[in-house]
């Protein structure tokens, strides 16, 4: 007998490939890297918002999947795969590291699980966070709640430093703003997000210090720094 979750999970892949079209594909050829494979402390963050308007959990998830990019704050661009949010699909992300800064971090996420009531992303090697992010909706005492639950570790020592110097707070605000945007779209006039943060593992995993070699932060900085010389080289080639 087939398990009930057959079809909701992605199939294993040795390396990622995407149908999404973004400015820089820094994902193809990499592997997924969840919280087991990260460097820094492991945190679980849970964000919940009660929804007015009587949408069922299934309605919420259907809307969320369909409108996913538009619910995200403007600091991150989400380039959806052609098949949308479905198991095995890989989306590209472009993240502004700091407001107004020229460096934009190119990375992505793989949809590892998706059913009618939840879906889960896993980050690839190089992403600043080695994480799973689960988006779900459920009924609690007659009220529908939308939830984001993140299980994450900063991927490498550089990411760990950034995470502790404000990255974690920025990320918390990001998910709160995402839920507020979703709630407003679903008709909640004054959404209020409840946030719970738990440290699951205080230890750093020093065996993953070498994750630095995949760092999307370093890759994006190098790409930005070499942009002028690449532009000159392309002009010279073009000019014959």
């Amino acid at each position, binding site marked *: 007998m087939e398990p009930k979750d057959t079809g909701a999970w992605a199939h294993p892949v040795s390396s990622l490939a995407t149908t999404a079209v973004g400015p820089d594909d820094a994902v193809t050829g990499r592997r*997924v890297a969840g919280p087991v494979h990260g460097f820094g402390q492991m945190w*679980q963050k849970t964000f919940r918002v009660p929804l007015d308007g009587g949408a069922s959990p299934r309605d919420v998830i259907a809307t969320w999947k369909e409108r996913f990019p538009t619910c995200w704050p403007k600091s991150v661009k989400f380039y959806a795969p052609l098949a949308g949010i479905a198991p095995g699909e890989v989306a590209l992300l472009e993240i502004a590291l700091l407001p107004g800064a020229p460096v934009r971090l190119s990375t992505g996420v793989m949809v590892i699980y998706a059913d009618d009531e939840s879906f889960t992303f896993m980050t690839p090697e190089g992403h600043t966070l080695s994480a*799973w992010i689960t988006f779900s909706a459920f009924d609690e005492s007659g009220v529908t709640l939308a939830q984001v*639950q993140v299980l994450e570790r900063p991927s490498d020592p550089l990411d760990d430093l950034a995470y502790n110097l404000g990255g974690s707070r920025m990320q918390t605000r990001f998910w709160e703003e995402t839920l507020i945007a979703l709630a407003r779209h679903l008709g909640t006039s004054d959404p209020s997000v409840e946030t719970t943060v738990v440290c699951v*593992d205080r230890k750093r995993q020093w065996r993953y210090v070498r994750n630095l070699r995949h760092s999307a932060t370093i890759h994006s900085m190098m790409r930005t720094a070499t942009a002028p010389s690449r532009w000159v080289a392309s002009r010279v080639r073009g000019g014959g």
Partner: protein
Amino acid sequence: MADPGTRVDVRSTDDPTASVVAIFGDVTGGSEPALMEAYSKAVDGRARTIVLDFAGLEYMNSGGIGLLVTMLVRSKRQGQRLLAVGLSDHYREIFSLIRLDEAIGIHEDANAALAAGRA
């Protein structure tokens, strides 16, 4: 909210340093109370090796996998070893997808896992 579809059975073994936690039914985010209580019971004695038996597993979503990772972290912190047996091809694929098979040893049955635990 607790998942009523989760059933867990803790068994001692001939080896006083190992316990088997047999999981039946569903594993979701709501399985946390049942799984963590079983885990605490399993390590209550001198157990250093915990074998998770998934032969009775019927459904697992991503919330359930998250719980397994939390259990893995907890076991490592306490110097215990977490092993898995009874995984169908489907659930082996999921462990491979999320690379959990690199952190939790997978074995055919409890005897093989207990032998690996003693090694």
